[in-house]
């Protein structure tokens, strides 16, 4: 699934990375706890989170995440956006809550970190 398809599915706004929407996303994971993200995250992950401070961007960068989707209409702070620009990490923001955002992506075929995919 491309980042553009994810943007449309989640009716998301692009906070940063308009020119990165062709990126192919193969799996995703959601958490507000960066400790959990560091423990379960894998390179290439699409991270969904409600944590909007700069640590979300730092954490995503550390684990080589492909992009971040902020849920509940949240947007990262200025420091987070600057850091994302520096690292070339696309940021999206959706009004959907975590459960709905993850459910929408999963039901449209985007697997979780474990590789578990929806039944067809």
């Amino acid at each position, binding site marked *: 699934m491309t980042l553009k398809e994810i943007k449309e599915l989640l009716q998301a706004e692009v906070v940063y990375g308009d020119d990165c929407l062709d990126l192919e996303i193969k799996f995703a994971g959601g958490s507000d706890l*960066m400790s959990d*993200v560091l423990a379960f995250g894998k*390179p290439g992950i699409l991270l969904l989170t409600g944590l909007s401070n700069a640590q979300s961007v730092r954490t995503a960068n*550390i684990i080589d995440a492909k992009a971040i989707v902020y849920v509940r209409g949240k947007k990262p702070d200025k420091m987070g956006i600057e850091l994302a620009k520096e690292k070339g990490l696309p940021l999206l923001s959706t009004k959907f809550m975590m459960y709905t955002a993850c459910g929408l992506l999963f039901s449209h075929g985007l697997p979780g970190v474990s590789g578990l995919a929806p039944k067809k």
Partner: protein
Amino acid sequence: MTMNNENELSQRFEIVGGDFSKAGKTSTSIKEILQEIGIDSSIVVRAAIASYEAEMNVVMYAQRGVLTLNITPMKLHLKLDDEGPGIEDIDTAMQEGFSTATEEMREMGFGAGMGLPNIKKNADKFEISSTPGQGTSLRITICLDKKGRK
């Protein structure tokens, strides 16, 4: 960055306790250094995660800390020494979920009691020692060749 000889390099980073605005900068620099010198990407992520968790522990709990990255042809070492409250019971602190984090730390997305276990998970060798009231030391080793990896 210091080249000790042709095959070894080291870099020292100072971390300031309580400064959440800079939290993670050291680990980002370490990651960039490892990428620049062509270390395998899976090793880079493991080292970055271990250093990030260690750095966040200093920011959250200690007054200051020094993190030293040392790379030899066979191994990557991260040495952290902090000045802070130390850890009374290391066995308990190593358990997933055990945490003494404050509300501020949790708002930053940390303090879930995953830090030390996660450092150990990403290291091939992990040593921790602490003196309550003085500080904590971590020694993290990641093997660059397949021999010696967990």
